[in-house]
């Protein structure tokens, strides 16, 4: 089942979760991620796991909460409108420091929107999403093989930091088929985002208080100063993640006169445009964050030392560009920078031609 081959993104991601040791999947039907629950309903019983079609997105994410409470690796997946509903559970998981993986196969919004691939949930994903002061690591693959790798990494980062982790896929990535060879999970743990780090024991999980004092998992902290202290504790963890985990793919930025910035499916088009520009003799580079939070701010700031033209390409109306601005502004005043934006909302996809044209325009 896990052999190399031509895999649809949604199914490859589901199989990667099983490879990662996830044995509990809770989901609710929504397009364009329906292949995930369908695949899990077939596959989980084969590996002794549990597939449960939940009554709602709320129930599904709170089941992930419950499975995490009991110490298991668990996952849910959905698409944009469903992810809005899951924000309750994500906030509680962040507060209770419970690991789990939530996959958003993004579609067009706001509201019911459409079922085309889109990137309109960037702010929701990277700014917390639910109520309260918290962040969640967000991993943004741009190919099906990378979706597989980052799904494996997501479970490890979740356990390492005791936090929910978001995998930000989209309708394009979920529905496309690509050649995939599944990595050995142990090997990926050494070579992937975990970088071989040891995972801490789950000595907080609720398993019944046998021969030990009872354990408690909660987010209600009503005592004077208790919540403030807990918030600072979480902030410390987020600071560590911001220091240790930013990851980006950087292509030919060293001599670049212009750098294209894009992530996820959109970065596939931007990559093509960057190659076209180079083929025309234009010194173009590409910055593609793999982690959207923590944003690879230092990497982009370093690029900004020698580059003063950036063309941001996103399948949303100017959300991702805010992080690009913050990073560039670390190095130089935005007044010294020429910043372009190709913004495609509602399921529209940019073309290589329009990116190339705008890049040439910016270089004129």
């Amino acid at each position, binding site marked *: 089942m896990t052999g190399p081959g031509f895999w649809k993104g949604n199914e490859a991601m589901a199989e990667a979760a099983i490879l990662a040791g996830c044995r*509990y999947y*809770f989901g609710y039907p929504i397009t364009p991620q329906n292949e995930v629950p369908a695949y899990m309903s077939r596959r989980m019983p084969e590996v002794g796991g*549990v597939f*449960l079609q*939940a*009554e*709602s997105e*709320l*129930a*599904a994410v*709170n*089941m*992930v*909460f*419950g*499975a995490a*409470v*009991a*110490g*298991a690796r*668990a996952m849910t997946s959905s698409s944009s409108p469903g992810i809005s509903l899951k924000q*309750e*559970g994500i906030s*509680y998981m962040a507060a*209770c420091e419970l690991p789990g993986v939530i996959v958003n196969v993004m579609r067009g919004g706001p509201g019911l929107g459409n079922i085309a691939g889109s990137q309109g949930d960037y702010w929701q994903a990277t700014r917390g999403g639910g109520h309260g002061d918290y962040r969640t690591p967000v991993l943004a693959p741009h190919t099906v093989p990378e979706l597989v790798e980052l799904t494996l990494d997501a479970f490890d980062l979740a356990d390492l930091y005791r936090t929910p982790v978001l995998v930000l896929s989209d309708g394009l990535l979920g529905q496309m088929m690509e050649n995939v060879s599944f990595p050995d999970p142990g090997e990926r743990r050494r070579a992937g985002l975990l970088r071989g780090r040891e995972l801490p024991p789950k000595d907080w999980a*609720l*398993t*019944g*208080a*046998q*021969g030990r004092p*009872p*354990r*408690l*998992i*909660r*987010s*209600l902290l009503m005592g004077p100063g208790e919540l403030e202290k807990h918030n600072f504790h979480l902030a410390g963890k987020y600071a560590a993640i911001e220091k240790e985990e930013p990851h980006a793919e950087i292509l030919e930025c060293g001599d670049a006169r212009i750098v294209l910035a894009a992530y996820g499916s959109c970065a596939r088009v931007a990559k093509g445009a960057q190659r076209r520009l180079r083929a025309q003799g234009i010194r173009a580079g590409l910055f593609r964050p793999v982690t959207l939070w923590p944003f690879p701010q230092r990497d982009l700031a370093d690029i900004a030392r020698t580059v003063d033209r950036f063309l941001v390409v996103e399948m949303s109306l100017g959300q991702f560009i805010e992080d690009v601005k913050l990073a560039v502004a670390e190095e130089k005043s935005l007044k010294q920078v020429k910043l372009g934006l190709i913004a495609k909302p509602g399921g529209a996809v940019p073309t290589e031609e329009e990116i190339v044209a705008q890049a040439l325009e910016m270089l004129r």
Partner: protein
Amino acid sequence: MSRKTLFARTPGLKAVPTSYCPGCGHGVAHRLMAEAVVELGARERTVAVAPVGCAVYGYDYWNFDTTEAAHGRTPAVATAIKRVLPDRLVISYQGDGDLASIGLAEIVHAANRGERITVIFINNANYGMTGGQMAPTTLAGQVTTTTPRGRDVNEAGYPLKIAELLATLPAVKYIARGALHRPALIRRSKGYIRRALEVQEAGLGFSLVELVSICPANWGLTPVAATQKLEEFMLPVFPLGVIKDEAAASAPAAAETPPEERA
């Protein structure tokens, strides 16, 4: 002269005072639940889920592993814990706002799937923690902070009879409704809880015990007057007794009458 201990604190509860209001039923319900768990020898393999509402503080009192859950999602959280740890005793403790209002979908579907969990459901006809608003279980005509002229059934509907509603589902194997305001009723309620936990232990299906309780602080009555009100107005709408017991037929072990029932 030799002395014999006739009554002591159950090891199922921590040795701390509760923060509940005078006359509140939660303390009694906590104790019954803790005693039943201890009697089954399950204290060290019990995982409880505390709701949003007054009883969230259950985790300060129960002497077993406990997690909080988001408002109404208690059965979803309990479902997953039980799926991960099928040999543990999993108890979801919920109030009427949590279970019958915001968490209605979660309780109906957990019950309909026959999750091997036990739900302790406290029905005190109002939202306690937030200051006595109308709950789905609020009686017709009952004055609350959000029904100042009394619950008008033409606008706000009728009290929701959860036990009867859930009893219609085939995967529900045990449902009983008890009360907490008289010693005999308390003993009977303990028997219901014990039986519900045995149904879970036998892996038969979903079990729930509804406990009708007073909320003197929010009803604006003394505990004694609240008890009279409960007997006069609540019990006719929420009659006590075993509503469904399919465990008796299918599992002789679970059908054994607890000693409290005989007392």
